[in-house]
C-alpha cells in the first residue's frame, strides 16, 4: 500500500497553465523534494483545470489549501524550503483580489470560488485526472453502482426529477430525451457524447474532459443502461489533443476494472465506448451533422424529424448529450434528482458552467446556480473590468447568442430569461466587452464566423449570412447607407425562418441583438462616419503630436514606411501610406501618437 503523504502539492496541468509553464514546475518540485529526501512525505499531483487560467500556473498546497498563483520554476525552491519545511505561507505568491488587492491565502475564501457552486466541475483541479482510484476516492462510480441496482425506467425518472436540461445550447429536458430513445423500437441503440465544443469563447467541456474524464464516461454508461444501448461514441474536437489522450486512458482503466465492457459490476449490462476525432467543422456540433460525420460523411445537417432518438447513428435510435450534461449525471444519480432540482430557477434547475473571458479581471470557468445575475458573475466572481474601463456589454451564447447591455445586468439568468432578452444560454461562453469594443465589429466578427462555417446545404444560411456579412463590412468600412439597417433586419428575419438547422436559425442573433441595444453605434458609423469605440480602422487616423522628440522608434516600427522625419525633429505620418496597424503608437515612449 502507498504511504500516506503529509502534504500534497497540486499543480494545475490544464491547457492554460501548461502553456504558462506548469510543465516545467512539476518535475522541478519532484527534483527538489527528492534532493531534500521528502519524496515520501509530500506528493506532487498534476491536476486538471482550476478555472482561474489567467493567473496560472496555479499551485495549491494541502492540507492547508494555500493557493499560489503565477508560480515560476524559480519559486519552487522557496515553496519547498519555506512552506513545506518551515510551514510559513509565501505572501508574495498568494492570490490578490482585483478589487481590494488584499492577499487571500485560503482557496475557499477567494471571491472567484466563494460564489461558485461546483457540481459538474467538483473534481476539476482537485484530483489527478489520470488516476481512476482518485476519481473513485471522490465518490466516483457510486452513481453508476446505484443506477445498476435500479430499473432503467427508475433511472430515467430520477433524471426527469432533477430537471436537468441539455447544457450544449438547446436546453432540451435530458430525461425526456432519454425516454424517447428508450421508447424507440429496435434492439441496437447508441449513446453519443457531443464533445465538439466549437463555440468560440467556451471551454468548459474541454476542462471537464481534461480534468475529470471518468465523470463523462460514468454519465454515458448510466445513460446507456437507461436507454438500452450497448455502445457509445465520444465525438471530440481534434483541437483538444490532451482531452483525447485523457479519455483514451480513462476508457482503458475502466475496461480493466470492469466498469466498462462485458457484464459491468456483475449486473449483466454491457457497454463499450469509442472515441471519434472531429475533423474541424463547427456545424458538426449540430446533432444530425455530428452523426453524419461519425458515419464518415460530410457533416451536413438533415431535416428533423425523424429525431436521432428514433433514427440516429447508422439509422438506429441514438441519444446525444453534451459533455457538461453527462458530467452532471453521476452526482444526480448519487444524490438523487431532488437535490439537483433544489437549486436554480423554476424552469432551469441546477448549476451551469460559464466561461468568463474578454475584458474581465478573472478570466476562467465559473459554475454557479441558475438564477444568478450577470452582475454577480461579472463583478463578484469575475472581479470587474480591468484598467478602470467602463463595462459596455456581455456577449452570451457565442455565434448563436446575443449581448446584454448594462441595464440588463441584474437579470436572473436562466434559459427563458436569456432567450427573452434576445440572447441565449448556448454553451455558456461569456465574453465581456468594455467601452473600447465596437459592437458593429463584434456583429461582423460573428457573421464572418457563421458565414465561414455554414455548410452550404440550405440557401437562406449559405447566401443570407454572406450578404449580411457584406453589409456589415460595408458599414465598418465607412460605406454604409441608411437602407442598410432595415435591409439587415429583413435578411435576418428570412434567414431565421428559412434555415434548416440551428446554425442558420440563430446566425442573425448577434446582429439583431446589437441592433436592438446599440443601434446608435450602427448609426454613428453610417451617418457620422465615426466608430465610437475607435476600432473600425476606416474611420481612424494616427497623428503625431508636439510631444514627439524625434527618437525614430515609430519610424522603425512602421511596417509600410509611412513615417518620416529627421532625428530629434518632429516626425509625420503619411495618411495615404498608413495601414492603421497601431504599431507606432505601441512603440512611442512619449505618448506622442494620437488615434482618432
Amino acid at each position, binding site marked *: 500500500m502507498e504511504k500516506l503523504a503529509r502534504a500534497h502539492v497540486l499543480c494545475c496541468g490544464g*491547457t*492554460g497553465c*501548461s*502553456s*504558462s509553464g506548469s510543465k516545467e514546475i512539476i518535475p522541478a518540485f519532484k527534483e527538489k523534494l527528492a534532493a531534500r529526501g521528502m519524496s515520501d512525505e509530500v506528493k506532487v499531483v498534476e491536476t486538471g483545470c482550476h478555472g*482561474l*487560467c*489567467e493567473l*496560472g500556473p496555479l499551485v495549491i498546497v494541502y492540507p492547508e489549501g494555500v493557493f499560489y498563483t503565477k508560480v515560476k520554476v524559480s519559486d519552487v525552491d522557496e515553496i519547498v524550503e519555506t512552506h513545506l519545511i518551515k510551514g510559513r505561507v509565501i505572501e508574495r505568491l498568494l492570490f490578490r483580489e482585483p478589487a481590494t488587492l488584499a492577499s487571500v491565502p485560503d482557496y475557499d475564501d477567494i471571491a472567484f470560488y466563494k460564489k461558485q457552486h461546483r457540481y459538474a466541475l467538483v473534481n476539476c483541479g482537485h484530483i489527478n485526472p489520470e488516476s481512476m482510484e482518485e476519481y473513485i476516492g471522490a465518490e466516483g462510480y457510486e452513481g453508476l453502482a446505484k443506477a445498476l441496482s435500479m430499473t432503467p425506467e427508475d433511472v430515467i425518472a430520477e433524471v426527469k426529477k432533477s430537471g436537468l436540461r441539455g447544457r450544449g445550447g438547446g436546453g432540451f429536458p435530458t430525461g425526456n430525451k432519454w425516454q424517447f430513445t428508450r421508447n424507440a423500437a429496435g434492439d441496437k441503440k447508441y449513446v453519443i457524447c457531443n464533445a465538439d*465544443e*466549437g*463555440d*468560440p*469563447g*467556451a*471551454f468548459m467541456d*474541454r476542462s471537464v474532459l481534461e480534468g475529470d474524464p471518468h465523470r463523462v464516461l460514468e454519465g454515458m454508461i448510466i445513460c446507456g443502461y437507461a436507454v438500452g444501448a450497448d455502445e457509445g461514441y465520444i465525438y471530440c474536437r*481534434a*483541437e*483538444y*489533443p490532451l482531452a483525447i489522450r485523457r479519455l483514451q486512458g480513462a476508457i482503458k482503466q475502466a475496461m480493466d476494472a470492469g466498469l466498462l465492457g462485458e457484464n459491468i459490476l456483475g449486473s449483466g449490462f454491457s457497454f463499450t465506448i469509442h472515441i*471519434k*476525432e*472531429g*475533423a*474541424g*467543422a*463547427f456545424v458538426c456540433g449540430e446533432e444530425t451533422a455530428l452523426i453524419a*460525420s*461519425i*458515419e*464518415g*460523411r*460530410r*457533416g*451536413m445537417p438533415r431535416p428533423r424529424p425523424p429525431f436521432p432518438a428514433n433514427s440516429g447513428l*447508422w439509422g438506429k435510435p441514438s441519444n446525444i448529450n453534451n459533455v457538461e450534461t453527462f458530467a452532471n449525471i453521476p452526482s444526480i444519480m448519487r444524490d438523487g434528482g431532488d437535490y439537483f432540482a433544489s437549486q436554480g430557477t423554476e424552469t432551469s434547475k441546477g448549476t451551469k458552467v460559464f*466561461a468568463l*473571458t*474578454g*475584458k474581465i479581471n478573472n*478570466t*476562467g470557468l465559473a459554475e454557479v446556480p441558475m438564477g444568478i445575475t450577470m452582475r454577480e458573475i461579472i463583478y463578484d466572481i469575475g472581479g470587474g473590468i480591468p484598467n478602470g474601463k467602463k463595462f459596455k456589454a456581455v*456577449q452570451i451564447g*457565442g455565434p448563436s447568442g446575443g449581448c446584454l447591455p448594462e441595464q440588463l445586468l441584474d437579470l436572473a439568468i436562466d434559459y427563458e430569461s436569456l432567450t427573452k432578452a434576445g440572447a441565449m444560454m448556448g454553451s455558456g*461562453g461569456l*465574453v465581456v*466587452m468594455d467601452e473600447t*469594443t465596437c459592437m458593429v465589429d*463584434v456583429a461582423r*466578427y*460573428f457573421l464572418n*464566423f457563421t458565414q465561414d*462555417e455554414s*455548410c452550404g446545404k440550405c440557401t437562406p444560411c449559405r447566401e443570407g449570412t454572406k450578404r449580411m456579412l457584406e453589409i456589415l463590412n460595408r458599414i465598418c468600412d465607412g460605406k454604409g447607407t441608411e437602407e442598410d439597417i432595415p435591409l439587415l433586419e429583413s435578411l435576418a428575419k428570412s434567414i431565421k425562418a428559412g434555415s434548416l438547422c440551428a446554425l442558420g436559425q440563430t446566425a442573425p442573433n448577434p446582429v439583431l441583438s446589437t441592433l436592438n441595444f446599440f443601434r446608435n453605434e450602427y448609426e454613428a458609423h453610417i451617418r457620422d462616419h465615426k466608430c465610437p469605440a475607435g476600432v473600425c480602422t476606416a474611420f481612424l487616423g494616427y497623428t503625431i503630436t508636439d510631444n514627439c522628440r524625434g527618437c525614430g522608434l515609430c519610424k522603425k516600427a512602421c*511596417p509600410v514606411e509611412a513615417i518620416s522625419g529627421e532625428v530629434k525633429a518632429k516626425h509625420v505620418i503619411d495618411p495615404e501610406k498608413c495601414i492603421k*496597424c*497601431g*504599431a507606432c503608437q*505601441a512603440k512611442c515612449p512619449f505618448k506622442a501618437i494620437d488615434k482618432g
Partner: protein
Amino acid sequence: MGEKFAEKDLVKLDGVLADLGSQKGTLIPVLQKAQEIFGYLPREVLVRISEKIKVPISQIYGVVTFYAQFHLMPRGKNIVRSCQGTACHVRGAKGILAELRRQLGLGEEESTTKDLGFTLETVACIGCCGLAPVLMVNDETHGRLVPDAIKGILDQYR
C-alpha cells in the same frame, strides 16, 4: 504511384488500411492517419484509399474539402494556428495575425512559406480563452501574446 513517396510511408498507409479499412464509417479516421503519414493528402494517396476501402473518389474529395483539418497541398514543417475566437478577437488577435504574416513573409492569401518551414492558419477557438490572445505552434500553446513576442516564438521553431 510515382517516385515522390517513400516506400516506407506507403507500407504504413497499407498497414492503416488493413487495420481500419473494414470498419464502419472508417473514411475520416483513415484520412486522418494518412495525413499524419504524408503531411497532406496527395491525389495518389486518395486514389489508393478509394480502391482499398471501396469508397468513390468523388465522395472522398467531398469529405476532404468539407473539413478544415484536411489538406490537398503540401504543408509546412511547423503549423502555426492563430486563434480568432471571440475572446482573442476583443483582445487584439487581428494584430497578432498581421505580425505573424509579416514575420513569415506571407501575403493575405498565402498560408505556407516558400521553404515549407511554416504553415499559418487561423482557428475559430482553441479553448484557451483565459490567456487570450493565443496561438498554437504544432501542439504547443502560447498565450498572453503581444505583437512583439511573435518573432521570439517563431524563432524557437526555425
